[in-house]
């Protein structure tokens, strides 16, 4: 492994003008900024597929995922590799990559902590190494607004400067915080790469995550006497935000929110689901028990999400990225049912 020397090449090379790419990735036809190849990690996830489908119409897309991509668009190159493997480097070597969109973050609370950490953090570090070594001009990392964490003393709308306290009560989110922090330090260490960190609120749609699975429950449990304001975003709005972030010149950390926030109870009403209020102390005990018997996909600390607010201020993304959500709150919420067939 030649990590050290690679790192050195990239830090020195970073100060040189971009017309001098590393020799290994030199190819005759380097397309102008905004038209080059985009590498998407986690391309076979539900969100990844949407990102690939949006991007491949205008750009060359290389999908990277260890899962297969059976229904991929014909002009998309898919590399079925684990991002921790050396083979990832070959992709960077084979053609100049203009942008990396990193979506390949694992959030499966059932997978062991060690595997999670190795995949999310070690894999991401590898990716960062290659981004630096091959002078990739753009890196977009999909973090999450959950890194701030629901807290009783949260400001109603957290700005990008708010501390990332999500891990205080909920250990499983620490990986994601670490990824976010790694991306932040990369942002400062490698100014030659435009690093964009997106922190979207709860993503709904065909995606399967804690929030969308929660809203898909036939009867939605709520906490008695708690009804926090929540923000949700439709997956296509997240894709839209990623596209905004890919524009040349954009860099920084951006909170991404969907339509106007609403109380959780109103969201459930829009979905026309029955809900059942449970006292917090009871809910916590029951959920812990269910979790230990593998009867639920929700770890007990996630109850805080239906207890306290964790909302973000997206005014920076609106002003600087030119991002604006387009899916209405009704359509965003109802999209959790659309995909279930």
């Amino acid at each position, binding site marked *: 492994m030649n990590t050290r020397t690679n790192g050195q090449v990239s830090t020195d090379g970073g100060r040189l003008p971009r017309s001098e790419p590393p020799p290994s990735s030199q190819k005759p036809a380097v397309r102008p900024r905004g038209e080059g190849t985009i590498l998407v990690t986690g391309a076979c996830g539900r969100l990844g597929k949407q990102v690939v489908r949006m991007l491949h119409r205008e750009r060359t897309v290389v999908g990277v995922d260890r899962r297969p991509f059976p229904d991929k668009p014909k002009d998309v190159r898919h590399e079925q590799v684990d991002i921790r493997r050396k083979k990832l480097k070959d992709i960077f070597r084979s053609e100049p990559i203009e942008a990396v969109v990193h979506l390949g973050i694992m959030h499966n609370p059932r997978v062991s902590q060690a595997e999670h950490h190795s995949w999310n953090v070690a894999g991401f570090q590898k990716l960062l190494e290659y981004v630096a070594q091959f002078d990739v001009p753009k890196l977009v990392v999909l973090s999450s607004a959950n890194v701030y964490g629901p807290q009783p003393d949260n400001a109603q709308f957290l700005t990008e400067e708010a501390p990332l306290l999500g891990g205080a009560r909920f250990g499983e989110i620490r990986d994601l915080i670490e990824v976010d922090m790694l991306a932040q330090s990369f942002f400062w260490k490698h100014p030659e790469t435009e690093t964009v960190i997106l922190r979207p609120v709860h993503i709904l749609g065909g995606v399967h995550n804690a929030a969308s699975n929660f809203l898909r429950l036939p009867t939605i449990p709520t906490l008695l006497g708690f009804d926090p304001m929540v923000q949700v975003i439709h997956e296509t709005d997240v894709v839209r935000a990623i596209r905004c972030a890919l524009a040349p010149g954009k860099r920084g950390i951006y909170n991404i929110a969907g339509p106007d*926030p*609403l109380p959780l109870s109103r969201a459930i009403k829009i979905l026309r689901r029955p809900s059942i209020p449970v006292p917090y102390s009871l809910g916590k005990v029951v959920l812990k028990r269910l979790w230990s018997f593998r009867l639920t996909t929700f770890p007990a600390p996630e109850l805080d999400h239906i207890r*306290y607010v964790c909302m973000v201020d997206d005014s920076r993304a609106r002003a600087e990225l030119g991002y604006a959500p387009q899916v209405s*709150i009704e359509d965003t919420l109802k999209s959790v049912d659309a995909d279930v067939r």
Partner: protein
Amino acid sequence: MAPLARRLIDSATSSVDDWMTSKLGEEFNARLARVPLNLTATGVDPFGMDPQWTKYALASVALLHRHYFRTEVFGAEHVPSSRVLLIANHSGQIPIDAALIGAALFMDVEPPRFMRAMVEKWTQTLPFVSLLFSRVGQVVGVPDNAKHLLKNEEALLVFPEGTRGISKPFSKRYQLVDFGLGFMRLAIETRTPIVPVAVIGGEEQYISLGNFEALAKVLKMPSFPILPQLLLPFGALPLPTRYRIYFGEPMRFGGDPDDDDAVIEEKVYVVKATIQSMLNRGLKARKSIFF
């Protein structure tokens, strides 16, 4: 079954509405229509304030204001129609003073204002309380929320004495304790005028003999006042003292919001002294606690 229940609820709410109107007059509804609320497409404001809940909350505090505490309001003309920080003395063990200032802003100030107050963060951990506060427009007391509200030209109430003020024992009544400095930095930063408010009548509604600190700590409450009147029948109700609320002339402060504490303290002292002298004058003018 469901339509029947809905009809019952509808008839109940409409009879409550009629009763409210008879007690508070048509003026209440007229003011409700005029009060500026910052609602979004989801029917609530970004802080979770729901106009339906707010209507009943305002009606209940307006009833207390008019009929139970029979509040007298002085200087209502000093409250501007744009962003404003209301700085008041805190008293009374439970924050009835906040509710009555809110009622005064809604019922007696022209044009009517909807007041926002900052609540303690520990209230957010309490079921129902956190829900109620959020639906009636009260927000968690962190600086970002205050700035956000003032940028939206709202009227924001702050008690710089905090919980130390509300749980004063009877022997220390109407003596201001130390003021926090945060409100002054906020006012300077957001160029918000400060309206000093003196509330008289709150200190006598519950007679506190002291603070049971050890128990407060165990219960994780900011204080645990010792209130002998709770042992009497209906003692949980505050005594029907007559409230008097004085709004002072707006005060404006300039300078650097990040100045040294010592510099900010001087400005805070000006506000504190103003409120204390308003209190002293009000107490001198008061003939009776209950009338």
